């Protein structure tokens, strides 16, 4: 078992490194091959007022005059040593730009994840223990509803109701604790839907098991049954789903930050996109891929340790029991 785990861990580690490197290459290729020339669209933009000599200097400094494979190789080498290049717009190091706004996004994303987990747990509890004819079916419809609402709409509704009507937070002070709380709700609600769908499917599966019937027969109340018996086996597979929603959290923070007027990675992406600052965009997208791959690597490595029932067969990654094809389709990112 121990040896099998080591082999599995080594294999997943190598796989993760390969995926990260290829993700960088892929974004680089997307940026350089797609039509649309960053040099003409940014540097020759009359609003920027660069002279022809300055343009030549910037092009040479960024290595934009070299063939694309050479550019890719130098850029990849720099990426591996932690050098993310210079912003085309402000000529400041991209790493500095990202480091400045990262803490704010980390706060928002972790608060959003916390909201998503709490909401998913509440939906899971309600899906099992609310009276069948009163509320249970209604509650089970929530994940489907959450998946149909654009998250900027949730943000705007929260701003309109709690910012303007009730005055719970000041819209002009987006970094305050209260405003962050509401931004986290807007970010967390769509994410909670994906977690809740898998959690509810697992809870349904577990509550049909014999041990649940025995526990009920011993006279355990719904809350004790939920917390002591059902929650643990049902939420283990959810670990994998949570890791997969990281991409959702990163993408969602882009919109949530714009809606709430926060500064962060999202607003940096938004600014760089509107000014065609491709080096910044490429760095953020590659870093997002790194975060996504690392979080999923950790989830996959921790999972067999948490759940002794999981067997490591070949190179198949541990698969949540309840994550059938339907749940996988909606999350849209479960690898087989």
């Amino acid at each position, binding site marked *: 078992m121990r040896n099998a785990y080591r082999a599995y861990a080594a294999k997943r580690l190598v*796989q993760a490194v390969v995926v990260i490197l290829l993700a960088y290459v892929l974004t680089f290729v997307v940026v350089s091959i797609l039509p649309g020339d960053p040099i003409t669209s940014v540097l020759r933009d009359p609003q920027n007022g660069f002279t022809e000599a300055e343009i030549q200097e910037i092009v040479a400094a960024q290595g934009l005059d070299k063939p694309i494979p050479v550019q890719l190789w130098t850029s990849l080498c720099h990426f591996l040593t932690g050098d993310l290049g210079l912003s085309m717009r402000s000529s400041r190091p991209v790493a500095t730009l990202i480091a400045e706004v990262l803490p704010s996004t980390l706060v928002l994303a972790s608060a959003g994840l916390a909201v998503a987990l709490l909401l998913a747990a509440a939906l899971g509890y309600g899906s099992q223990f609310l009276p069948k004819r009163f509320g249970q079916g209604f509650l089970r419809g929530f994940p489907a509803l959450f998946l149909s609402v*654009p998250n900027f*709409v949730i943000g*705007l*509704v929260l701003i309109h109701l709690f910012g303007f009507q009730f005055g719970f937070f000041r819209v002009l002070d987006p970094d305050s604790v209260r405003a962050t709380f509401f931004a986290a709700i807007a970010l967390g609600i769509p994410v909670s839907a994906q977690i809740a769908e898998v959690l509810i499917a697992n809870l349904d599966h577990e509550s049909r098991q014999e041990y649940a019937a025995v526990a009920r027969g011993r006279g355990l109340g719904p809350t004790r049954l939920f917390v002591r018996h059902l929650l643990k086996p049902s939420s283990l597979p959810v670990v994998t789903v949570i890791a997969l929603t990281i991409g959702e959290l990163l*993408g969602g923070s*882009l919109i949530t930050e714009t809606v709430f007027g926060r500064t962060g990675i999202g607003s940096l992406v938004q600014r760089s996109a509107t000014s065609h600052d491709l080096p910044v965009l*490429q760095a953020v997208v590659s870093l997002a*891929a790194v975060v996504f791959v690392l979080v999923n690597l950790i989830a996959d490595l921790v999972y067999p340790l948490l759940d002794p029932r999981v067997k490591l067969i070949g190179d198949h990654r541990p698969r949540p029991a309840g994550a059938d094809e339907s749940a996988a389709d909606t999350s*849209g990112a479960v690898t087989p």
Partner: protein
Amino acid sequence: MTVALPSSAWRVTAASRLAVLRVPPAVALSFAVIALVIAWSIVPGLFTSFDPVNGVPADKLLGPSAAHWFGTDHLGRDLYTRVVYGTASSVESALIAVSIGVAAGGLIGLLAGFLGGWVDVVLARLVDVLLAIPSFLLAVIIVTALGFDTINVAIATGLSAVAVFARVMRAEVIKIRQATFVEASFLLGGSRWHILSRHVLPNASRSVLTLAVLRFGLSILVIASLAFLGYGDPPPASDWGLLISIGKNYLKWPWLVYAPAFVTIATVLSINRISRWLRQTA
């Protein structure tokens, strides 16, 4: 016994036909919503008599009423009219996006699953890499490289969904390729092309189509988000996401946000309900 067989077989098909026809009311309502949305996108002029671009300045920021169902915007334009005229580009973009995803993703998945070997290894790795990049960020970087307009938003949304289609198609093809009837067809001398076109594609297409319906709803959301961020056509275009984005500057008149948001949510909810129904009956 021989007499009973055909009649029982007939009964089974009749029963399954009835099961298909027995549509739950929620699904019937969803189909009605989608029919209305399609009608809006094809003949918007039939549903409203107002002009979507030129407004009446004196009538600006009126609340919802019998004359203006969704109220009017800051330039005195009827918001219901703007929503109806914005349907075409919102829905068409989602259709383009899903077509790109089905075509490109389906081809990648088909090649990987059917050919196997090193082709499968290379393509499966490519799909893994695509899945590692958060799809919304991928769409943003593609639309930035292509330039901001609604058609590029549709292309970017489609490309960011390629990996999901490829994964499902590959899994289906591998599953079907190992089925006994494919083996039988091969032993009867069926060529690769024959097996592919007569057995693999028809059987794989069902789950890919179900996924396509689901991704159609999701694409409407992604395209609305990209339009909301200002990557689509600028005003006076009236994509749903753009309408909400304009409305957010006038939150004192909340129907400017709530009305287009309601239409978007109702559409996506209907599509998702239909997709779930297809998955249950299929």
